């Protein structure tokens, strides 16, 4: 069972290889297989998470390796759902970008920054609120991956029709990810913090960066909802928002110290 993340990684690379030629097709058509390979990768990662959870007797979401495996799985699922939906124009570059992101996070999971040691969580991490906090944060961020790729693509193209399509994908992804991220990162995080540390907000670096991420996407939504802006500014903010999300996870964990240093 410990080979499951490796199998998933291989599946993701296979999916990326299948998708690559469609990026150069003029008609924007998609291959019929790659998303099913991504679905298989998701199932492998879900099985890995369940297997580890059973081994340690607690949802396997409390370590860096486990978080990255879960995050990569969720990105695969979002990419699969994007391919399956019929409301928005399917843009192969968005699926490909998300696939590469999933591969990158899984590659990090196998690096020395994410020890694979099978360890049950310390007392402070044994909380249902923590499980909700971590899982919903990563599910929200999986949608932000799609918005990040779409926003980069928006900024890179001059074609107005393409821009509209990328903008719609970014807007919809953030619209879906934002409430989930709000619930996970901020609300359930605060509830857990109050029960673990006695204070629901402590201006801890992790909290500050999660709030900054949330504020960036709040700015994005207000630019889109109220000011109806469809120029480069919302896309720039979406890119910045995802970079903040990345720093919240990696930067704070490895460069800053605080209450979240477990």
């Amino acid at each position: 069972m410990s080979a499951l993340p490796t199998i998933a990684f291989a599946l993701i690379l296979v999916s990326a290889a299948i998708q690559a030629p469609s990026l150069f097709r003029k008609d924007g058509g998609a291959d019929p297989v790659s998303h099913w390979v991504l679905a298989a990768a998701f199932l492998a990662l879900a099985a890995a998470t369940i297997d580890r959870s059973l081994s340690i007797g607690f949802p396997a979401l409390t370590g860096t390796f486990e978080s990255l495996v879960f995050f990569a799985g969720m990105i695969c699922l979002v990419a699969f759902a994007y391919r399956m939906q019929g409301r928005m124009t399917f843009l192969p570059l968005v699926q490909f970008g998300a696939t590469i992101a999933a591969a990158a996070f899984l590659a990090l999971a196998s690096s020395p920054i994410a020890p694979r040691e099978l360890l049950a969580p310390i007392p402070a991490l044994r909380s249902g609120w923590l499980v909700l906090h971590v899982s919903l944060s990563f599910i929200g961020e999986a949608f932000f991956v799609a918005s990040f790729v779409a926003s980069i693509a928006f900024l890179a193209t001059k074609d107005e029709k393409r821009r509209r399509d990328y903008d719609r994908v970014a807007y919809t992804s953030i619209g879906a990810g934002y409430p989930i991220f709000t619930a996970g990162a901020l609300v359930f995080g605060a509830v857990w913090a109050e029960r673990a540390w006695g204070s629901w907000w402590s201006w801890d670096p992790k909290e500050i960066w999660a709030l900054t991420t949330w504020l960036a996407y709040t700015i994005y939504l207000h630019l889109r909802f109220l000011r109806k802006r469809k120029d480069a500014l919302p896309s720039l903010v979406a890119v910045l928002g995802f970079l903040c999300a990345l720093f919240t996870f990696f930067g704070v964990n490895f460069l800053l110290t605080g209450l979240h240093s477990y």
Partner: protein
Amino acid sequence: MRKLFEALKSVRLALVLISYIAATGVLASLVPQGRDSSYYRSSLPEPLASVVVKTGFSDFYGSPLFLVPAFLFFANLSACSADRLARELRKGRAGRHGPDILHLGLIVLLIGAVLGQAAKQSHPTWQGFARLGKGEAVELPDGRLLVLRSLRSEKYPDGRAKDWISTVEVSEAGKTVLPSYDIRVNHPLRLGPLSILQVSYGSERVLELEGPSETSRSLAAGEYIDAGDARLTLMSVDPDSGDAIAREEGPGGTKVVSLGKGSKIGAYVVLGAGEAELSGLQAAYDPFYPVVIAAFAVIGLGSIITFAGKLGELRA
């Protein structure tokens, strides 16, 4: 007044304030907060250290650099929400109140946060930490007495800690008000606005004493025992020999004494060194936490309604 409201309800102002709070928050996360000015002068280049100390950036969240924009943001959010709600009601679009509810939740959250912070600052002694051994008691800030009846550490098969549990009893004016409650990590005891949390667990070297009628007690470093006119405060215990060093204060002055096995302290006889398990309990005070929880519920409701509305628009 109208002009002020017009200025305050500006979405542009909201975006500027949110951007400012986000950008300065990021900078504040990179500068260690709440340190002495000498720390910044020794760890940062002089011009930067001066800026950090003089602008109040060393205590960013308590400084006008944060508090003024945060207050402006609160006023802006309130004005935007009132204006938006009035417009929606005028148009008769009752089904589009998701953002209004979401904004209301944020306003309530900010009020709860400010009131909670003010309450904490006005009751600084209502928060604290105590390490208790079995049978020991601590007086809570509200006057009640918390007694640690038992403590235990649950372990995984590999020996690592799984949970720490303190069974406590709470009494008030000599009357038991809570006979038994298990405080676990992440499962605090709630006593009105006061929460008692299990935050640590450990053991400490103590001096074991045997009293009259085979009663026994232990003494940790810093604890004292009265022996006649003198008071002996334990300073340290040698783990190998079991001998202890104590400070004796009495009518004859203060002196340091050595206590070996068999030494007598009043009615007690020293048995030697031992280990005592201690539970680390923390008291936290926030009478406005229920307001925060209510705000979260309102934010959740607003988010769901907003999201459902937007989803409907997309489908259309």
